[in-house]
C-alpha cells in the first residue's frame, strides 16, 4: 500500500499528542494527555469506562476540538482541521457505536471510503471488493448493511476505515461483544493490516487481545494518563491493577 497524502514535513513520531485537554461543562474528560505513536507501531489505549478514551479518539480525528494542547500527525498540526481533512492525511478511525450506512449495500459502504483515493466508481468498487474479500465479507458485498450481524458490522467498520488507505488506524472497541473465535479472527486481521505498515492505536477492553497485539499500552483514568509502557510492565503496575485490571490481572476481560 502506498502512503497517501503529503509526506511528513519534519521527522518525529507518526502521531504525537501533547498535553491534550478537553472538558464538557464541569467534567474534565481528557486532562493533560501526552503520548506518541511511531510508524508501524501498535499502541493500546486502555482504562475503565468513562476514562476519556473515546473522547481522546474524537480529539485526534477532528470530531472534537481540544481546549488545550496539540496533536501532530506526520508533521502536520491537526488544529482546526475537520474530520475529512484529518482522514485525507492518512488517519482513519472506527466508531465504538458502529455507523454503517444501513440502506446502502455493503460494497457501497466501503466505496464511500475508497472513492476518496480513487475518484472513478469502477476502480473504487474493485478496491472495495478486494478489501471485503480480505475481511471475509465478499459473500455479503451486495446485501444491505442493515442486515449484517454484529461481528460482520465490526468487520465492515474495519473495512471502511481500511478503504481510506490510512497510515494510522484508530480502532474503537472493534472486538467488544464478539465471541472468542470472532475475536481471534479480528486480532489476526489487525495484525495483518499492521504487517503492511499501518500503525494502529486501539481502544479495547478485551485484555487478551490487547496483550497479544500491543507493543505499548497507555492507561487512562479520569482523563489522565496513569501509566505507559510494555504490556507486561503495565499489567504488573499496581496503579493500573487498582484502577482498571483488578485482582484478576490480565487473565481475562473485565466484566
Amino acid at each position, binding site marked *: 500500500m502506498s502512503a497517501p497524502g503529503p509526506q511528513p514535513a519534519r521527522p518525529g513520531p507518526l502521531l504525537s499528542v501533547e498535553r491534550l485537554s478537553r472538558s464538557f461543562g464541569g467534567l474534565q474528560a481528557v486532562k493533560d494527555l501526552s503520548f506518541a505513536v511511531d510508524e508501524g507501531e501498535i499502541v493500546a489505549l486502555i482504562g475503565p469506562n468513562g476514562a476519556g478514551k473515546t473522547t481522546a479518539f474524537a480529539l485526534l480525528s477532528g470530531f472534537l476540538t481540544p481546549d488545550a494542547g496539540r496533536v501532530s500527525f506526520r508533521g502536520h498540526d491537526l488544529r482546526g482541521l475537520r*474530520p475529512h481533512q484529518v482522514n485525507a492525511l492518512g488517519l482513519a478511525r472506527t466508531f465504538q457505536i458502529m455507523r454503517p450506512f444501513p440502506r446502502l449495500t455493503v460494497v457501497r459502504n466501503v466505496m464511500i471510503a475508497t472513492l476518496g483515493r480513487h475518484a472513478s466508481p469502477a476502480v473504487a468498487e474493485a478496491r472495495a471488493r478486494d478489501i471485503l474479500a480480505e475481511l471475509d465479507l465478499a459473500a455479503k458485498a451486495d446485501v444491505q448493511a442493515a442486515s449484517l450481524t454484529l461481528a460482520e458490522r465490526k468487520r465492515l467498520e474495519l473495512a471502511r476505515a481500511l478503504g481510506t488507505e490510512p497510515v494510522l488506524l484508530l480502532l474503537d472497541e472493534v472486538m467488544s461483544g464478539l465471541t472468542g473465535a470472532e475475536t481471534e479472527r479480528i486480532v489476526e486481521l489487525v495484525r495483518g493490516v499492521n504487517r503492511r505498515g499501518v500503525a494502529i492505536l486501539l481502544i479495547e477492553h478485551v485484555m487478551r487481545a490487547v496483550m497479544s497485539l500491543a507493543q505499548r499500552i497507555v492507561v487512562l483514568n479520569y482523563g489522565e494518563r496513569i501509566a505507559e509502557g510494555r504490556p507486561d510492565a503495565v499489567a504488573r503496575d499496581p496503579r493500573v491493577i487498582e484502577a482498571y485490571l483488578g485482582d484478576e490481572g490480565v487473565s481475562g476481560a473485565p466484566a
Partner: protein
Amino acid sequence: MKWLGALAVAVLLALPAVLSSYALTVFILILFYGFLGQAWNIVGGYTGQLSAGHAAFVGVGGYTAALLSSEYGLTPWLGMFVGAALAAGLGAVIGYLGFRFGLRGFYFVLLTVAFAEVCRILVSNVDALGGALGLYITFTGNPRQFQFQDQRAYYYIALALLLLATGVVAGIERRRFGIYLTAIREDETACEALGVDTFKYKMLAMVASSFLTGLGGTFYAFYLFSLQPSTVFGIPLSVEIVIRPIIGGAGTLLGPVLGSFILTPLAELSRQYFGQSGLHGAHLIVYGVLLISVVLFLPRGAYPVVRRLFRRA
C-alpha cells in the same frame, strides 16, 4: 430498462397530437411539477436535506426573467439563465447558513421556509418588483418572448425541462458525487470519518438543485403570464414541489416523475370537483390523506413498488 425509457420518451413526444386542450394543460402541469420535483430531488431526496422553501427559487428565477424582459428587453431565453444563476446564489446562501452551522432535520426545514417567507414579504413590499399585486406579462405570442399561441409549445418546453433535470440526476447518480450524496443522507458523521467533505457536497447539491428550480421560474412566469409573491414564493408552491418526489420515491431517479403522474391529475380532478361544489381548497385534504398513507404504507414512495411490478411482468 433502457428501451422502456426510450419508449416512454417517444410516447411523450407523440402525445400532444392526440390530447384535448384540457388534457394538454394537465400534462403540461404533470411535466412541469415533475421537473420541479426532480430538481428538488437532488438536495431533498438524494442528499436528504429537506428544503421546504424551494418556491423561493421559482420566484427568484421567474421575477428575474420577467423583469429583465420588461425593463431591459432581454429575451427570457437568456433571462432564464440569469434567473437560475440568482436562484443558485440564494441557494448557496441558504446552504451555507444551514450546513456551516450544522442545522439538520427540522431546523433546516425551518431555515428554508423562513428564507422563502422573507423573499415573499420583501417582494410584496417593493413597488419596483410589482408589490403585492405582482407582475403581469402582456401577451405578444412572440416565441422570442417565450410566448406561444400554440399550447403544445409549452408542453414541449416542460418536457425538455423534465428530461434535462432527469438527465442531470441520472448523471449525478452514477458519479462519485451522487454516491457521496446518498451516504450523506444516511450518516454525515460516518461520511466525515471516511474522508468525505460533507459541507462541499451538500453545497454543490443545493446549488445544482436551486439552479434547476430557478430555470423553472421562467417557465412559470411566461406560461401563466403573471407572478404574484404569494403564489411563487408561497408555502403552497413549496409543498407542491416537495410532495411529488416524496409520494413517488425521494432519492430515486423516477420517483418525482411517477409522483407527478399520480398526484397532478388527482389534484386537478379534486380541485375541479370540489371547486364546482364550492369547497375550494378541499384538494388539500386529498394531499393530506395521500401523504399520510404513503408515510404509513410506502415510506420509500411508490417507485420501489412499481419497479417490483415491472420486474415481475
